[in-house]
């Protein structure tokens, strides 16, 4: 029985886990190494570490953090945040990461995906996609961005990608429902999320880490529609992220959203729901999970 994966995410800054962490029995809840071990014991299927350090100094700390986390971790570890080059990726893999996640750099230099896959294997390449529904992306005036497209079109700097949204769509081609954002969700690339997902799979990505910006932080459930659309569109696994608030949300994204894995941070950090009880709930709902 092939299991759906439950993946806790550690958001790290300057070597510390940020976002509230309230695990019991931890001497230092902000220490990534200690938290990683706790998740390992709790039955997490993988771990994702995202570095959200803004400054360069943070990056040096990251290598040390990855090293400490990886030393006693015998489940897969994905590290992302600020990975821009082959050298960045090599350093992280050498420090003990099994996979690297790339986002902005992949959009700006799609060839990086195939270079990474060629050098380290597809299994080591996770492309993170931050997507937002078109109808939800309101501009300051309250009008949708789509209505402003003609103006914005001229400002788009990412010319190396052919699937850019424009007002002059060919007859019969549906307007995208979600577009891809970069730079931590601050920049709308106007790329159609579905087509971008297909492109990254073709370029050799091993998995897609799909974050719904609309659902993220709401704890109101994953975006099952987005997840199902992307999961159907690609032959590689899709990790759903953003919006986890309770066990029923995980069941939804697996059963209706077609996700291969689901990622969450706060819900696990606060120990509102232990990984074990979540998996027992999922099993009862008919979702195949790994219970140890």
């Amino acid at each position, binding site marked *: 029985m092939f299991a759906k994966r439950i993946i806790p995410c550690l958001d790290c800054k300057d070597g510390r886990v940020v976002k509230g962490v309230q695990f019991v029995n931890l001497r230092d809840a902000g220490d990534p190494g200690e938290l990683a071990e706790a998740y390992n014991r709790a039955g997490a*299927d993988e771990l994702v570490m995202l570095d959200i350090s803004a400054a360069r100094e943070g990056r040096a700390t990251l290598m040390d953090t990855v090293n400490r986390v990886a030393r006693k971790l*015998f489940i*897969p570890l994905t590290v992302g945040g600020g990975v821009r080059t082959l050298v960045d990726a090599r350093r992280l893999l050498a420090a003990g990461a099994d996979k690297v996640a790339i986002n902005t750099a992949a959009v700006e230099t799609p060839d990086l995906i195939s270079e990474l896959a060629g050098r380290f294997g597809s*299994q080591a390449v996770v492309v993170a996609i931050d997507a937002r529904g078109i109808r939800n992306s309101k501009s300051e005036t309250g009008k949708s961005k789509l209505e402003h497209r003609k103006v914005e079109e001229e400002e788009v700097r990412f010319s190396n990608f052919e699937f850019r949204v424009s007002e002059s769509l060919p007859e019969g081609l549906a307007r995208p429902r979600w577009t891809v954002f970069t730079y931590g969700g601050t920049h709308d690339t106007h790329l159609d999320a579905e087509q971008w997902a297909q492109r990254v799979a073709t370029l050799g990505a091993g998995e897609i880490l799909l974050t719904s910006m609309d659902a993220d932080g709401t704890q109101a459930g994953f975006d099952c529609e987005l997840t199902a659309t992307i999961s159907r569109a690609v032959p590689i*696994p899709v990790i759903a992220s953003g919006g986890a608030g309770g066990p029923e949300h995980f069941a939804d994204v697996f059963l209706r959203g077609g996700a291969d894995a689901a990622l969450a941070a706060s819900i696990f950090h606060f120990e509102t729901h232990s990984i074990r009880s979540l998996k027992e709930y999922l099993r009862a709902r008919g979702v195949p999970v790994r219970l140890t």
Partner: protein
Amino acid sequence: MIALIDYGAGNVGSVLKAVQYLGYPAQPIDRAELLNDAEKIILPGQGHFGAMMKALEERRLLDLLRTKLAAGVPYLGICLGLQTLYAGSDEAPEICGLGLLAGRVRRFEAVAKVPQVGWNQIQMLRETGLFQGVREGSFVYYCHSYYGPVTEETVAVTEYGETYAAAVEKGNVWAVQFHPEKSAEVGLKVLKNFLES
């Protein structure tokens, strides 16, 4: 000394870490001369079948590996380290495997998602020292697009569209398709069983 064959593209680092965690001295080996002192050999493969075979050949490790296996040195293949035991692979049809097992390595066809990335269960076909203390139905971590067919040397199988060889045993040669170094407690147990054998 436990030799970990390092052909430049594998997951040697994480296997080394696991072996050392279990308290065994191990050394990554990238040249043929160094393989001579090996008491046990681990081939932690990852990536492309053809690329690995070529890299082993270039480092003059392939012939020596054949010699060592024939001489009875205990061997544990991981992932591609299992696939190389077959006659060949559809991933690189022009390149021969070691040919210790009959049949060819094939690509998953009957499933929506390839590679298989994640945890799946092993079903044991017969007893093996490698799985001593490992429960039937244990979950292990897989990451692969190609699989080895079931042969008489298969000791455990897994299902992913196909039923394929999860683990094989032939005399001094053991191999697993999953990644014991990434399979939590179960994986460490399998590695320990090999190291203690």
